[in-house]
């Protein structure tokens, strides 16, 4: 057995080692302090007490149910969209792709207020109907918010996979005279199952650890396990209890990921190969498909994205009147006699450059790491590694950032630590996207190139990157989005010295300058949308080249 093969067989363990070294010590520093201090038996005692509380199991049950429902509905709603995105070159395709990511990058507080300003009791919808329905304060509100947050994951992951489905299979199905619906159900869905399960897993995890959304829309009834962990840690200041609950959360997430993975792995054998299909342009499709396609996006836009538009409009509304006062305050740098720069602690230009620099770097590093890791385990089934790498989604960001800072501050500069923290948090999604995509490309290509004498770097540059371009961009876009939206790591590690958009918005809201915060939010959306369009444009340019 050669050195290369040894390296290859050891790769999953190497990846796991690096990953564990990055994540475990910081978390242990915080959550393990309880055990270290009071001894293992006292810790176990505390863990038993917490696990015996009925509230714990109630929270766990609610966490699981709402997360399963949210994930299933997000996927169901996203499926037609993913089909249109991958099959039809309709006008506004780019717009749809970029806009659907916006809820993902906005601080959750803003998205919550956006949903309320539209669906709330005194929201736009109730005003139009002349009613005061409180529908949003129910399980329905939770699920609505979760769909809004996560639909972009489903849209992007599934459409990317759909584009890789072999065109010849479709031709065979056509020649057999199968109808469209039958073809989708019998051919496409089974082929897409790994991507669907992947997206569903990620969405499940995001919803499982959801906190603010669940409380504000569902009230105490729907407090998740994450709420209890937070409570134990920061209210009761009980690190042992927080540690025990965090372990429980981790275990449940682990089981969910592992199960989904086993389900997907069975299907992975039907990897696609051969020529990829050609997207049809608007002229080549029937008018009825056109109507359905546009109808779908309009409906999605109305129900999901008008809340964002309505909150943008809200920035022009102050003290019961329409005005541009908030924007003027932002430019003038003061609200009444209050200096805005005093509140935000950064000028606009600084805010833009800091936010974009951190997000750009973080996304680049995370995507590169994800690519290398996905490539190293390519073509191999390593369910334990796939499960392990999802762990950051089940770890609280505050705990992780606090531990990271405690361990490394003074040794590693703050901004680097922030990028590490955000990178680890984004890694599960980035890695999933790249791994799913890489498994979809036949190993044969690489084997052929290798047999022709192409070196590794050459193969990566000329073969793998071009073939996987769309997925690499998806991974980059999500890494970018997650970093931009991060509030916890920047605040916990940067300690107020580093200011990004979400921090500036929270600071303004903290000073009750709600409209100015939203005005800043509007600028933020413009900057972010420009960045996404730029990222997606690269992908479209490549598509035109036939890749």
């Amino acid at each position, binding site marked *: 057995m050669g050195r290369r093969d040894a390296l290859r067989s050891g790769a999953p363990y190497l990846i796991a080692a690096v990953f564990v070294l990055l994540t475990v010590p910081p978390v242990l520093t915080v959550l393990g302090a309880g055990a270290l201090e009071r001894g293992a038996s006292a810790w176990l005692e505390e863990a038993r007490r917490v696990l015996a509380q009925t509230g714990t199991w109630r929270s766990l049950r609610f966490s699981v149910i709402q997360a399963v429902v949210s994930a299933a509905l997000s996927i169901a709603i996203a499926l037609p969209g993913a089909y249109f995105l991958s099959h039809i070159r309709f006008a506004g395709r780019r717009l749809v792709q970029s806009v659907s990511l916006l809820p993902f990058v906005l601080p959750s507080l803003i998205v919550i207020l956006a949903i309320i300003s539209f669906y709330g009791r005194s929201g736009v919808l109730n005003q139009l109907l002349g009613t005061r329905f409180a529908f949003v304060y129910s399980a329905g509100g939770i699920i609505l918010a979760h769909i809004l947050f996560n639909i972009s994951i489903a849209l992007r992951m599934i459409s990317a996979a759909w584009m890789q489905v072999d065109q010849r299979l479709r031709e065979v199905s056509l020649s057999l005279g199968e109808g469209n619906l039958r073809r989708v159900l019998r051919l496409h869905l089974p082929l897409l199952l790994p991507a669907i399960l992947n997206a569903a897993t990620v969405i499940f995890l995001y919803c499982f650890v959801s906190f*603010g959304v669940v409380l504000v*829309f569902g009230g105490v009834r729907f407090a998740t396990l994450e709420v209890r962990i937070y409570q134990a840690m920061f209210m009761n200041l009980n690190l042992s209890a927080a540690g025990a609950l965090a372990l429980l959360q981790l275990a449940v997430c682990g089981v969910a990921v592992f199960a989904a993975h086993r389900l997907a792995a069975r299907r992975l054998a039907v990897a696609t190969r051969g020529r990829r299909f050609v997207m049809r342009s608007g002229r080549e499709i029937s008018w009825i498909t056109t109507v359905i396609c546009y109808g779908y996006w309009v409906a999605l836009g109305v129900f999901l994205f008008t809340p964002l538009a309505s909150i943008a409009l809200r920035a022009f509304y102050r003290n019961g009147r329409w005005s541009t006062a908030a924007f003027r305050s932002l430019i003038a740098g003061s609200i*009444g006699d209050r200096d805005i720069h005093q509140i935000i602690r950064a000028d606009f230009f600084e805010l833009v450059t800091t936010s974009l620099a951190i997000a750009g770097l973080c996304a680049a590093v995370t995507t590169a790491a994800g690519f290398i890791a996905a490539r190293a385990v390519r073509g191999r089934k390593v369910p334990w590694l796939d499960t392990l790498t999802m762990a950051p989604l089940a770890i609280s960001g505050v705990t992780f950032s606090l531990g990271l800072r405690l361990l490394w501050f003074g040794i590693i500069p703050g901004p680097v630590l922030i990028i590490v923290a955000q990178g680890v948090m984004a890694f599960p999604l980035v890695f999933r996207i790249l791994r799913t995509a890489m498994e979809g490309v036949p190993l044969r290509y690489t084997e052929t190139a290798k047999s022709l004498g192409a070196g590794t770097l050459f193969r990566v540059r000329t073969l793998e990157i071009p073939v996987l371009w769309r997925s690499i961009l998806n991974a980059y876009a999500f890494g970018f989005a997650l970093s931009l939206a991060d509030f916890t790591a920047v605040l916990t590690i940067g300690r107020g010295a580093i200011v990004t958009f979400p921090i500036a918005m929270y600071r303004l809201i903290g000073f009750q300058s709600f409209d100015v915060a939203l005005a800043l939010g509007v600028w933020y959306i413009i900057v972010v949308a420009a960045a996404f369009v730029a990222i997606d444009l690269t992908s479209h340019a490549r598509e035109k080249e036939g890749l």
Partner: protein
Amino acid sequence: MRVSKVGVFTAVAAFMLVTASALFAGGVGETEFVDPEERRLEETEELIVYSYGSLPGSLRDSIVEYFDREYGVDVELERIGETGAVYTQLYLERNEPVADAVIGLDQSYLPRLREDRLLEPYEPSSLELVRPELLVDDEFLVVPFDYGYITVNYDGHALEDAPGSWDDLLDPRFRDSFIMLHPGTSSPGRNFLLATIAEFGEDGYLDFWREFRDNVLTVSGSWSEGYGLYTEGEAPMVVSYETSPAYHREFENTDRYNALVFDGAAYLQVEVAGIVRGARNRRNAERLVEYIVSQEFQEQIPLSQIMYPIHPGVTLPDAFQAGPDIDRSVTLDPDRVEENFETWLEQWEDVMR
């Protein structure tokens, strides 16, 4: 030759465990039993202060400028996150303290601060207090920094006929009219729950909540969220500070928002500052405590923190004069709270779900 998978896995797992525990030990374990007071590091011309993330920038500047001007000392004021995170940070660093002083914990942390021995006492040379009950610790482990009351706030535009008593709050005409903050995740929410326990007693508070439940529209995880919902007009009442309306009067010239005080009594929250045990720069930390309780610093409290200053010499801005009169501060004994809060919260959750 085939390398056994199990072998590789065991090797890597062992390696990881060893490294992780080494890192872990380096981070927390190493100096576990050394009293930080006995290994105080050599003093520097610096002062490191921890506070929560929402401490206003203007107060930070005021402290930084004061130390630069008076003593040529560099102040590093780290605004960490929420109050609970500040405490956790101090706790995890207690054997090798980084900070010299802390600003912004409140009286409810006192039992834990004592038990975990995180602070060292210091009595400022002069401490003039507007109310005697602000001296929450007569051993001077902490000194008061500012204070306020947790009350029901209401929107006068949406509610013409505001409730006049706790019993009034239960009136069915206020159905779905109240935004509660979660007592497990928000400290005003926690204090409001305590206020109901102070009012109705441990035996009666659950009855109050059982009846009040229908009037609660939702429970927010944080003050920012809850208050945002309230100013967006989702519900006419919210849990907040008695001083919150002063903000709207001062900066938005509107008196539509008001605070409710029943029978002249309200639940008191005192925010405190203190010196970290084993602080490297004890002398500068003492100077900070002196400055914080001085009239010069306290003058800035009302309009930056939107809280009451502790110093009787400060004249309150007009916006603060318009609020309701409070003749009686209500609090529960922090030790009693510390002992029972988890149970109270569980019971409250059972009623509310």
